[in-house]
């Protein structure tokens, strides 16, 4: 038996301080709220104590952003670009450190933070830096104006990448930002604050306020915020939509998903299996666009499931910092409880549950890769977003049935199609109501490509040319 010896990435590259303040107007400052601890979900070890921004702190941050907006928005785009390019380069230079920090605070495997998250983070800053002096060619008139102060609230699943998705286009368009990272994953956002200082970004252009839901609410509801950008749960998205209604604030919401990954009988099977695994087990399934509903054509269902189970047997779950780990830790106790609750409901409703033989570490939050077969459209695990490594398998007989089942969900963020037939890809893609449709691949991201949802998956688009619209007064 070929056992891989532990191959841990060194923690020495990161220097975590015992406590962190808020980043306002270019300086780190204490918060007036009650500070909280952020932990490593793989070991439950406390990593640092982090300040909570109270309403007054948020107000200070918004005022700092407002003050900075004048000079930042008046600066020629080519000058703003220099700062953003500089940030992108510093991220690349510090990418190993940021990857380790992300894996420590989030629980995701280092292979993912190193090979997916960090390269995409840098790519987003590079991409939008390129737009800063070309906004007149984006199709919004000769000199489109920024909105003002953007209040941005991001989730814990891709902490630094979601920050990049929010901050890069905002700055390129000439806005200033106040960003609140998720309470379980604030550390890379705070490291980003240092990077802003390292890049000599003018004070107040980027402000980071940490805290939980109340801090986010204070930011979203602040009267001097011109734009609200939120990525997170549909439930919170609804509250935000309600609270900003009629305020004149521009809003983009990236919310939940329940993506269908449709495998036709003529698919390239081995690659489809990889795509299914990547679709649902990437980042422990903590992905809003995860392919959590597998729709497989009946004629190949048995064969495909057998191959999928065999493949799941090779997944390596454990220490996120081990370079050979495929599946890391669940981000928090609360999320683990939710995954357990929904999985138990799946069993109770009559679906058959399967996981590979897989020992879970004693400490930390862990959930084995899990497949449910015999799932009906009416089961909760086929309707609700689990946001964990849990795949519901459904079957279909005809392409029309596949499309019908795929669209029969309140969400509409993403979908996947697997077939060797090009015409079928185009036909299915044109029928699916989902913001992204991947063909013969899944969970592929690129800064040039717009991303966003239909229905309860939210509105507005991030990324690409389309992503500029959300940060321009057009």
């Amino acid at each position, binding site marked *: *038996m*070929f*056992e*891989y*010896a*532990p191959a841990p990435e060194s923690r020495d590259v990161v220097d975590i301080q015992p406590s962190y303040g808020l980043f306002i107007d270019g300086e780190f400052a204490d918060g007036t709220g009650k500070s909280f601890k952020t932990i490593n979900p793989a070991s439950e070890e406390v990593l640092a104590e982090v300040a909570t921004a109270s309403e007054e702190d948020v107000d200070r941050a918004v005022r700092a952003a407002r003050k900075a907006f004048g000079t930042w928005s008046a600066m020629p785009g080519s000058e703003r670009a220099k700062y953003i390019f500089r940030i992108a380069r510093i991220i690349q230079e510090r990418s190993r450190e940021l990857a380790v920090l992300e894996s420590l605070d989030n629980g995701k495997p280092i292979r993912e933070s190193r090979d997916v998250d960090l390269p995409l983070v840098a790519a987003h800053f590079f991409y939008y830096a390129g737009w800063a002096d070309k906004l007149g060619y984006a199709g919004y008139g000769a000199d489109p104006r920024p909105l003002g102060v953007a209040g941005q609230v991001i989730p814990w699943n891709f902490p630094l990448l979601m920050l990049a998705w929010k901050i890069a286009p905002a700055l390129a368009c000439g806005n200033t930002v106040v960003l609140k990272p998720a309470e379980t994953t604030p550390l890379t956002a705070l490291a980003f604050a240092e990077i802003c200082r390292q890049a000599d970004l003018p004070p107040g252009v980027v402000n980071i306020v940490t805290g939980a839901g109340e801090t986010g609410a204070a930011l979203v509801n602040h009267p001097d915020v011109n734009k609200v950008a939120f990525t997170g749960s549909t439930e919170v998205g609804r509250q935000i939509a309600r609270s900003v209604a009629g305020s004149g604030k521009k809003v983009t919401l990236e919310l939940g998903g329940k993506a269908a990954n449709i495998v036709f009988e*003529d698919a390239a099977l081995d690659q489809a299996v990889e795509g299914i695994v990547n679709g649902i087990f990437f980042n422990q399934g903590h992905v809003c666009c995860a392919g959590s509903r597998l729709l497989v054509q009946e004629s190949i269902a048995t064969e495909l499931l057998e191959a999928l189970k065999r493949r799941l047997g090779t997944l390596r779950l454990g220490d996120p910092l081990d370079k050979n780990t495929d599946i890391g830790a669940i981000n928090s106790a609360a999320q683990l409880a939710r995954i357990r609750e929904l999985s138990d409901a799946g069993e109770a409703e009559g679906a058959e549950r399967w996981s590979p033989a897989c020992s879970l570490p004693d400490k930390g939050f862990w959930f084995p890769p899990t497949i449910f077969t015999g799932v009906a459209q009416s089961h909760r695990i086929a309707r609700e977003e689990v946001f964990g490594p849990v795949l519901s398998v459904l079957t279909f007989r005809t392409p029309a049935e596949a499309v019908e089942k795929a669209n029969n969900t309140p969400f509409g963020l993403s979908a996947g199609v697997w077939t*060797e037939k090009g015409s079928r890809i185009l036909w299915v893609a044109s029928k699916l109501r989902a913001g992204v449709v991947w063909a013969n691949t899944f969970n592929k991201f690129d800064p040039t490509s717009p991303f966003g949802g239909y229905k309860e998956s939210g509105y507005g688009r991030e990324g690409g040319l389309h992503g500029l619209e959300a940060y321009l007064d057009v």
Partner: protein
Amino acid sequence: MTTSLADVASSNVTLRTFLHGLPGVDRVGADQRAAMLGTRSIKTTAKAEAIDLAIRMVDLTTLEGADTPGKVRAMCAKAVHPDPGDPSVPKVAAVCVYPDLVAQAVDALKGSGVKVASVATSFPSGRSSLDVKTTETAFAVAAGADEIDMVIDRGAFLAGDYVKVFEEIVAIKAACGAAHLKVILETGELSTYDNVRRASWLAMLAGGDFIKTSTGKVQPAATLPVTLIMLEAVRDFLATTGRKVGVKPAGGIRTTKDAVKMLVLVNETVGEGWLSPDWFRLGASTLLNDLLMQRQKMATGRYAGPDYFTLD
């Protein structure tokens, strides 16, 4: 199942229908999977084990027009004692030579347990008559070869004459007698991954004991994705027919890192059932010295210069 599958070769139409009915291979996805497995980090004890296993899997090869009996004898000595200063280094699996040098190799390796493999069938191009190919095979076997590495007729394969390729393999297999048959697909000339999968199945259906990527004379040779697809083919063939076939990547595997990546590919695609020289070989010439160098580095913590490893 075996008998009904044999029927697919009864005509070119049935054989074509069968081969083209195999699931396709998506190039982007296959490349991505192979690249991901290439990022596995094999360190310390795992690396030491992998190096010894890789040494045991090497088919130490010399296939040059300038080969001499002396050169072959020297290589055979190296095959038995790869590092004369360290008896703990295992023997390689086999040596691989041209047919006219088989007798020398057999003589030099007598009693050592190292097998003698010979290329045959107008290697490397395969451009000759079937008679010539079977005669050459019989000649190598008569000289004592334990294993025959044949090449398929790529021209016939690309022209869609699958039956010709099939029947040739069957004929060579018959000429092999008790010798093991490795079928070289020359994947660098097959141009698509779909063709690699089809050629793999064709070779297995015709009775090949091993499928081998390349002659080493054509680039690209043993790439990770091509080896991945061939491993998937032997896995599926076992599940379908109950017969197990080995895999031999050859050509371009020069470093320990390359070899370890191959072992990771085997481990995570077909599992430990193939992690033995009986089922997986590495066709190589310069690889062995790099394995020895890394092995010594693991043991002593230092790299010795290249002059401390013999060139044979």
